């Protein structure tokens, strides 16, 4: 090998002697990352965030976060001479009079949508593969906080241009605050600096949107990545993979190249969307005026489930001691969000409590191998999805010619029935897939070769599954079940005697019991069993004779 030129060795030795960078890099550049497409979902969010920081900075150069009233004399003809806030005027100015302004605005907004899309897709991947299990619970919690902050960041950003649609969102925000018992009015007056809409909220949201939340996001995303780096990424089960190793490509150069390419892909997709698909056309909405509201007023997609909850809620209200408790706003605003976010945050700990599993896990589980978790996940997705869908019930009604009230009534039923059906269906599908796995291991896969037996009967020859597939299937690990066996005198262990303890034991048995053990191939029907010997006798090598 040729020695590197002195121009490079000089400064690098200087730095290395003082920072110890060499050994740090040597250690970390060789970090191994496992390869699976679903492990890149989180990077969609990461790279969207970077795009958001860059495009957002561009927008701040022209945006004026002020609610002072001005008359528009810009180049958009249909609003010429209309009175509006300075914030809206500057957003129009960015869209029509700043070179590249509309493109950057649209990329910013599409990146915001993809940021939350990426986060959610990533979160679902982590959930369904159980990658939140010990030792990664804290990183999961950071993720839940990141998601919550992203929703807030989206809400504040959506409100900034002060167009009619953002004002409608702000009005709902105010309504939700007012519905909070006792302190609601104070909270709303505090946020808006007096009576709604006031003159302060845009500048306050601006600070929150460009400084406070992005700062926290940046810090938490760094912590998220560092923890992932230190704890190492989970991997799928497979050949030569154990709980103590990671099989994949080193960070430098292979993973870095892939990751860099994926950044370019993300940027490319967001830029394509920003170029060809119009988003948030504020000039069509018009300036905000509390007296106006448009049909089809919806929030950005990640707030859609709250909108749907509000739309299907019956008009319940309690009057108590001259105070009104507006349940029709309070419940839809807080309950679905509370169920989902609290459920997400607590799930790793609830699962540990139910299974009593205190081991470390470094394998990503296949969703089918933990059927109850997968069912809970799909059930939650159904709950979320129904609310989300009903957030657009007016568009569904108008485009599919279903009566508006019918959509509401259906929604009120389906929101309870749907998740239950989804749970049941998912559970059956998981068990079915497990059976299929067991069959592949015990019988191999269909070869497409039909053989006639000496007795005249026809059978299909099965060949053993390929090694990598078989290893992948064998990666199934049992889920621990709490010890519930009564001792010799019929007394259950102390922990299982309270009502909660009994419930816990029952849940544990349901959660962990493996109904389809992979075993040694004795989980099949009678018909197949009869041919066990023939299958064994017809080896993989005999194909050629039959062709």
């Amino acid at each position: 090998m040729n020695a590197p030129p002195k121009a490079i060795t000089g400064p690098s030795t200087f730095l290395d002697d003082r920072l110890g960078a060499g050994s740090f890099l040597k250690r970390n550049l060789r970090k191994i990352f496992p390869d699976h497409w679903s492990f890149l979902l989180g990077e969609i969010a990461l790279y969207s965030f970077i795009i958001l920081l860059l495009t957002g900075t561009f927008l701040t150069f022209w945006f004026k976060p002020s609610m002072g009233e001005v008359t528009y004399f810009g180049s958009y003809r249909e609003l010429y001479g209309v009175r509006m806030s300075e914030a809206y005027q500057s957003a129009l100015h960015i869209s029509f009079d700043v070179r590249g302004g509309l493109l950057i605005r649209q990329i910013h907004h599409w990146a915001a949508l993809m940021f939350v899309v990426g986060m959610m897709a990533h979160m679902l991947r982590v959930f369904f593969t159980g990658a939140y299990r010990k030792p990664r619970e804290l990183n999961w919690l950071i993720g839940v906080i990141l998601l919550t902050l992203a929703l807030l960041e989206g809400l504040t950003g959506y409100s900034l241009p002060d167009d009619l649609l953002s004002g409608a969102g702000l009005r709902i925000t105010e309504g939700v605050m007012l519905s909070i018992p006792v302190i609601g009015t104070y909270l709303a007056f505090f946020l808006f600096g007096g009576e709604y809409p006031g003159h302060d909220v845009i500048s306050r949201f601006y600070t929150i949107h460009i400084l406070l939340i992005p700062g926290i996001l940046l810090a938490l995303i760094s912590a998220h990545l560092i923890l992932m780096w230190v704890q190492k990424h989970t991997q799928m089960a497979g050949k030569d993979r154990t709980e103590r190793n990671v099989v994949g490509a080193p960070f430098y150069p292979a993973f870095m190249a892939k990751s860099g390419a994926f950044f370019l892909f993300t940027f490319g997709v967001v830029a394509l969307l920003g170029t060809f698909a119009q988003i948030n056309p504020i000039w069509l909405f018009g300036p905000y005026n509390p007296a106006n509201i448009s049909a089809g007023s919806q929030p950005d997609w990640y707030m859609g489930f709250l909108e749907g909850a509000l739309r299907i809620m019956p008009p319940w209200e309690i009057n108590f001691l001259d105070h009104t408790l507006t349940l029709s706003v309070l419940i839809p605003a807080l309950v679905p969000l509370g169920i989902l976010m609290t459920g997400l945050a607590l799930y790793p700990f609830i699962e540990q409590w139910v299974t009593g599993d205190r081991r470390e896990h470094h394998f990503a589980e296949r969703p089918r191998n933990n059927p109850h978790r997968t069912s809970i996940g799909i059930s939650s997705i159904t709950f979320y999805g129904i609310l989300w869908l009903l957030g657009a019930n007016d568009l569904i009604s108008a485009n599919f010619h279903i009566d508006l009230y019918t959509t509401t009534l259906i929604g009120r039923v389906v929101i309870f029935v749907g998740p239950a059906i989804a749970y049941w269906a998912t559970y059956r599908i998981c068990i079915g897939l497990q059976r299929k796995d067991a069959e592949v291991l015990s019988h191999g896969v269909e070869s497409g070769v039909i053989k006639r037996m000496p007795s005249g009967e026809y059978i299909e020859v099965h060949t053993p599954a390929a090694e990598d597939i078989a290893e992948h299937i064998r990666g199934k690990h049992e889920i621990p079940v709490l010890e519930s066996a009564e001792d010799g005198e019929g007394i259950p262990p102390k922990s299982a005697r309270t009502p909660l303890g009994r419930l816990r034991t029952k849940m544990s048995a349901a959660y962990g019991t493996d109904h389809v053990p992979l075993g040694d191939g004795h989980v099949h029907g009678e018909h197949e069993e009869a041919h066990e010997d023939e299958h064994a006798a017809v080896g993989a090598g005999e194909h050629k004779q039959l062709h």
Partner: protein
Amino acid sequence: MIGTGNSVNSITARRRHPLARVAVVTLALGLLGGGYALAGPNGGAADAAIASGKADDVAQGKSLFVAHCASCHGLNAEGTAKAPTLVGVGAAAVDFQVSTGRMPAADAGPQAPRKPRADWADDQAVSDLAAYVQSLGGGPTRPAAEEVDPAKGDPGKGGELFRANCIQCHNFVGAGGALTYGKYAPPLNPATPTQIYEAMVTGPQAMPVFNDSTITPEQKRDMIAYITNVREQTDPGGSGLGRVGPVTEGLVAWVVGLSLLILASIWITAKKRRAKA
């Protein structure tokens, strides 16, 4: 007097005839009734129609009405259990309903949809029909061409009125929206300026009436200018995605954005480093 006295006598004699009084009263009543019939309100309309050469229109309109409308609205437009009376709805209502194809209605749904005009309903037929219904009891008339000329309106002012009065049902660009009980606010894109004007003054179906004291004719023209300008503009940001707000944007983010990125991630991770021999 000779030669004529006879006849004088005979006239006098007839005057004194017992039935003369009856004849005179009959004649007087006949003249009064006939005169009133000619000079009264209905007669005035007929006179005006004759004067402006529209008598034929009214007659034509009546025969069209009897052929195509009377089965629901009654032979004299008095209304039936199936459909309301058309006395007093005016020519504007007829022009709007028939020129947009809503009438004659195809079936009795919650709302008559816009559809292609009936075969017989060319401009002349619609005009005759409108003249006939107008002759029944007045009502809003059709606007003159310059009253609905978008070029003469101020879109800025019209936009403000449009946002204050229309978009809660018709959406911010007039893309339409849902109402209750199967009704809906139709999209404004296919409506001509005249039809938009007529809809405002007559309030068809679920729509309220915006008469001239609520919104002046000049303001209506401003609104028409805004509506037609906005629907004709090229979306500066690319595809408008139906111009219905964030719902389609979210759909595109999930379906197009996420699908493309998942394809990219599958492609990237499918490239494995070749093991060294």
